[in-house]
């Protein structure tokens, strides 16, 4: 067997039904893109139905219930099932090879994320089959979404399905962050990373901080719907506006989570089309990072009409306008890159030019709606509909089409038709402007959003009719694209290697891309390696560089320094496995149980999921028999790394950041209620609970953390027996804390449903109890592995990560206990 054959062999996708076990990014990334594109078509059909209903005044094609289901699902699907996943798909598919790696650091996690996504999406769309599609809008404002006004499972479909899909966004974000930081090409310094990597890094960090608060909100809303916990019910002390804060703390960054990857795509393709590097590369990075930060500070501009004090309105108004500056830098950066060149008008370039035009226009109306008095007028009207379609379709769909045309050869090895592509572009471009341009005027004339009809006497007929014609032009464009997509697989011209003459590494090698990525991993010290060294492509394919032969005999990728890109370790990657699919199915089983209010399904699904996760974690800490291997180019690397160098440690640390964001969202709600409610805690409700047992419990939990840290140190010094005996004690300490806290809380607030105050206290405590429970479980798994000799001084990732989780849990719990049991006292005392 030749070198190359071995590489091909280990990365080969299993045949038949076992193809479902594949975890490699080259497949999973394409599944993501294809699935998201399919949902895009579904959601587009819903959009056409919306436009049909509104085409003429007083239309009775759809009744209000059907219409509300359709617009809710159109928005939900486009945001959660199309925009975010398709960008994750491009990242999963392209980033590893673009960065010169073989795969992402946690292939099974990507696969699990994908299966969560596809099952969640199917679950959500299946609601149509039962006539129970969500109908409260994609924003799900309570009290409309509470069971009093939305009985039936419609809203539950949304809450559970979206929660499922959000898990997938978070797993992809962890993947991307650790991938960008730890598995770049050998010697690729952070500043030499391709611009797409930067954009995806910022996007992934934003997902890590933006999605968890919505997960918390979903849990609260479902908790109120299913169990009557009054988070949002004003009659029992809750506040429906709290949901709006949670939703938009997620919802506004979401817009940039969609836009930034698209900007990354544009910044990647445009230089290739004009044949020169991006002008002001560093300003682009700066813009991406500052957009990321600013986007978390302007969520209230979705709530200008709520009746918030003018001072905060003005603050958020100014913050909203500030985001125009990084956007301005990028737009003029692209124009400057184009300036003075005479590029060939290829389809990807046309879509990029279309993007520039439409997105800039949407940005201008964005500045308008950032102005408070203007927003008071156009808020919740068709003007806003027009505005955000300019930003999102212009800022996301157009770049996605550019990307599909541009990167298609990597998938199929063939080029799509330029002739059809131009038709697709012009139909889409003209159709888009016809659809949404006139809606600005409809809004200014007073046509609200989310209305299933407009009365004849308002005179909105002609505007809406034109808009509907435009929508169908876009539909035809999509249809043409699909036809060409299918056709080109057989009849498209063969692309060969690097058909666009690009500079980045995903084109190093031939098309279609091999499952392993490039044959060997070249050292990289510039931003456009294929432009810098014209012979690089051939040398990569000849296997001249790193890792042309699988050194460990299996799938592997290289871990490199976070900043410097120095080779550090060969990461032995897991191959095909059923675990991700099985785990996603068992979670889906749980969720369907939740929908049907079948306790046994939740229980069975929960137990199966938990055991699969334990099984999964059991195999994460792989240690290859050969400790040091030769990776080519006279380099020998270890096959194992321990914390905090290991990618596993980075993975957990990133996940804990998301955890922190979720906890932050929960605490935000807790303090929010203190701020808005006039008297808190209200008369006649226990404020703090017994404090002595709580203090004792906290001391015990601290002791648990000390024990875990002691075990880590003991093990490092070779005293494994201490760790073996001590770790169970830590688990015991965790259980004792849960027991004591439960006792106090049950005593103080036996009926949390009675009022928002006890409900909030319970929510904070429950969050911590869940964490301590997981920490206990981890301690037990480590204990078992210690006794089996699978955790040793040389092989310590498992105990190191357990310690990291324990200390984080302790910090969370101390804050939580302080907030629930002691903070009210401070206020009363002062």
């Amino acid at each position, binding site marked *: 067997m030749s070198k190359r054959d071995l590489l091909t062999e280990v990365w080969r996708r299993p045949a038949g039904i076992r193809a479902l076990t594949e975890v490699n990014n080259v497949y999973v990334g394409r599944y993501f893109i294809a699935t998201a594109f399919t949902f895009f078509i579904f959601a587009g059909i819903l959009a056409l139905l919306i436009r049909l209903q509104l085409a003429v005044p007083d239309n009775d094609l759809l*009744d*209000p*219930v059907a219409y*509300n289901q359709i617009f809710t699902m159109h928005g939900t699907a486009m945001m959660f099932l199309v925009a975010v996943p398709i960008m994750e798909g491009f990242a999963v598919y392209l980033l590893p090879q673009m960065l010169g790696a073989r795969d992402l650091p946690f292939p099974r996690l990507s696969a699990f994320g994908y299966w969560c996504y596809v099952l969640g999406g199917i679950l959500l769309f299946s609601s149509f089959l039962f006539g129970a599609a969500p109908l*409260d*809008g994609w924003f799900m*404002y309570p*009290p*409309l979404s509470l069971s009093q*006004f939305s009985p039936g499972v419609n809203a539950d479909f949304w809450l559970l399905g979206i929660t499922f899909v959000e898990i997938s966004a978070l797993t992809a974000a962890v993947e991307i962050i650790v991938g960008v930081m730890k598995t770049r090409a050998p010697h690729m310094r952070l500043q030499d990373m391709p611009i797409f990597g930067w954009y995806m890094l910022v996007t992934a960090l934003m997902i890590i901080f933006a999605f968890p608060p919505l997960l918390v909100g979903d849990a609260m809303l479902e908790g109120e719907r299913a169990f009557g916990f009054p988070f949002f*019910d*004003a*009659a029992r002390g*809750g*506040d*429906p*506006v709290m949901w709006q804060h949670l939703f938009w703390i997620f919802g506004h960054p979401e817009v940039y989570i969609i836009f930034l990857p698209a900007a990354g795509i544009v910044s990647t393709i445009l230089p290739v089309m004009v044949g020169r590097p991006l*002008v*002001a590369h560093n*300003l682009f990075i700066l813009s991406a990072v500052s957009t990321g930060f600013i986007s978390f500070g302007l969520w209230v501009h979705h709530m200008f*009409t709520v*009746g918030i004090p*003018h001072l905060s309105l*003005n603050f958020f*108004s*100014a913050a909203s*306008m*500030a985001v*125009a*500056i990084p956007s*301005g*830098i*990028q*737009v*003029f*950066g692209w*124009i*400057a890159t184009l*300036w*003075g060149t005479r590029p060939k008008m290829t389809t990807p370039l046309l879509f990029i030019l279309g993007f520039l035009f439409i997105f800039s226009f949407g940005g201008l109306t964005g*500045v308008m709606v950032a*102005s*408070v*008095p*203007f927003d*008071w007028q156009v*808020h*919740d*009207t068709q003007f806003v509909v027009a505005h955000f379609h300019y930003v999102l379709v212009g800022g996301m769909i157009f770049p996605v089409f550019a990307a599909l045309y541009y990167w298609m050869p990597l998938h199929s090895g063939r080029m799509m038709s330029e002739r059809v592509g131009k038709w697709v572009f012009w139909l889409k471009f003209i159709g888009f402007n016809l659809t949404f341009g006139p809606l600005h005027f409809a809004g200014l*004339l*007073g046509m*609200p*959003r*989310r*209305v*299933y*009809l*407009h*009365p004849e006497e*308002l005179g909105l007929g002609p505007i809406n009719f034109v808009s509907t014609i435009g929508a169908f032009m876009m539909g035809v464009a999509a249809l043409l694209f699909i036809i060409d997509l299918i056709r080109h697989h057989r009849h498209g011209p063969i692309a060969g290697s690097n058909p666009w003459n690009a500079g980045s590494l995903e084109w190093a090698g031939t098309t279609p891309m091999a499952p392993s990525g490039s044959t060997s991993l070249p050292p990289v010290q510039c931003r456009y390696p294929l432009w810098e060294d014209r012979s690089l492509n051939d040398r990569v394919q000849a296997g001249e560089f790193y890792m042309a032969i699988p050194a460990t005999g299996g799938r592997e990728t290289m871990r490199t320094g976070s900043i410097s890109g120095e080779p550090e370790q060969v990461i032995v990657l897991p191959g095909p496995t059923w675990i991700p699919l099985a785990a996603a199915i068992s979670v889906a089983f749980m969720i369907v149980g939740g929908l049907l209010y079948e306790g046994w399904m939740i229980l069975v699904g929960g137990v199966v999921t938990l055991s699969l996760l334990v099984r999964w974690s059991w195999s994460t800490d792989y240690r290859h028999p050969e400790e040091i291997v030769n990776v080519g180019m006279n380099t020998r690397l270890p096959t194992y790394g321990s914390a905090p160098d290991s990618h596993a440690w980075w993975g957990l640390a990133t996940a804990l950041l998301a955890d922190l964001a979720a906890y932050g969202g929960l605490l935000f709600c807790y303090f929010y209620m203190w701020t808005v409610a006039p008297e808190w805690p209200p008369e006649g409700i226990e404020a703090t609970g017994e404090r002595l047992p709580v203090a004792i419990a906290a001391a015990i939990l601290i002791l648990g953390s000390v024990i875990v840290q002691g075990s880590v140190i003991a093990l490092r010094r070779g005293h494994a027996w201490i760790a073996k005996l001590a770790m169970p004690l830590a688990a015991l300490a965790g259980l004792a804390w849960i027991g004591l806290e439960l006792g106090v809380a049950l005593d103080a607030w036996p009926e949390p449903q009675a009022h928002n105050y006890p409900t909030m206290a319970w929510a904070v405590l429950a969050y911590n109890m869940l964490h301590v429970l997981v920490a206990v479980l981890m301690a037990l798994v480590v204990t078992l592995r210690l006794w089996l000799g699978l955790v040793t001084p040389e092989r310590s990732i498992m105990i190191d990560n357990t310690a990291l989780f324990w200390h984080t849990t302790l910090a969370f719990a101390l804050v939580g206990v302080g907030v629930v049991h002691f903070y009210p006292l401070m206020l009363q005392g002062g």
Partner: protein
Amino acid sequence: WGLLRARGDEKLAGKTMIYLFGIGLPLVTLTALIYFSVDLTTRSRSGDTVAATIEVVGKRWWWEVRYPGAAPDGSDIITANEIRIPAGQPVEIYLSTTDVIHSFWVPAIAGKLDMIPGRLNRMVIQADEPGEYRGQCAEFCGEQHALMAFMLVAQPPEEYAAWLEAQARPAPEPEDPFLARGRDAFLDAGCGTCHRVRGTTADGVLGPDLTHVGSRLTIGAGTLPNGIGPLAGWIADSQSIKPRNLMPNFNNFDGETLRAIAAWLESLE
């Protein structure tokens, strides 16, 4: 910049373009915009001296309108789906809801403000010219969000005062047997469970107060023009006119009775 390009320094020219147009231009224009925007925000919606105080309560899918203490005996005047205000004077409106979130909006008069459970929002509006202005719920509130409209009628102050005085009176006794038949049928059918007609035994509070329904421009929260025909149609088949609204169809009256009820309601001016 032409100069820069002439010097052949393309990269510098590109960067200059970004600094000038990407940073400089928005910085200048946005600063100016923020100034005017903040100024306008501060000036609108406030005002201490007002000519009238009105409470508007959002309901699925109609509007209850109250004039607190406006009746001669100091009690509230209650009406629905039509707000009358004196023209040319500032009027304060308190906004609340008894069910889901709604948003109060009269596009031709002022921006919108939400009605949120557990909160009371206040806005001050002023119609400079007498006239009829259409208002509309702007926050999605369920099945009939689309047909949750109302009329804002601005009148010269003296006409407004006369209207208030008329609204304070209970419903008149029917003038003829036909109208009396309509009233009796209305009461017998149990319409009073949801609707109130002051001066009769109908004292429901779930639906709009109908004491002076005949004086309103529209019925069904801006869905139909007022009149005997539309009223009869609404009573018999409101579920086709405004599907899913909370009033069931009353289609078991004979034609004559239905007309009598509609005529009686129309007479309640």
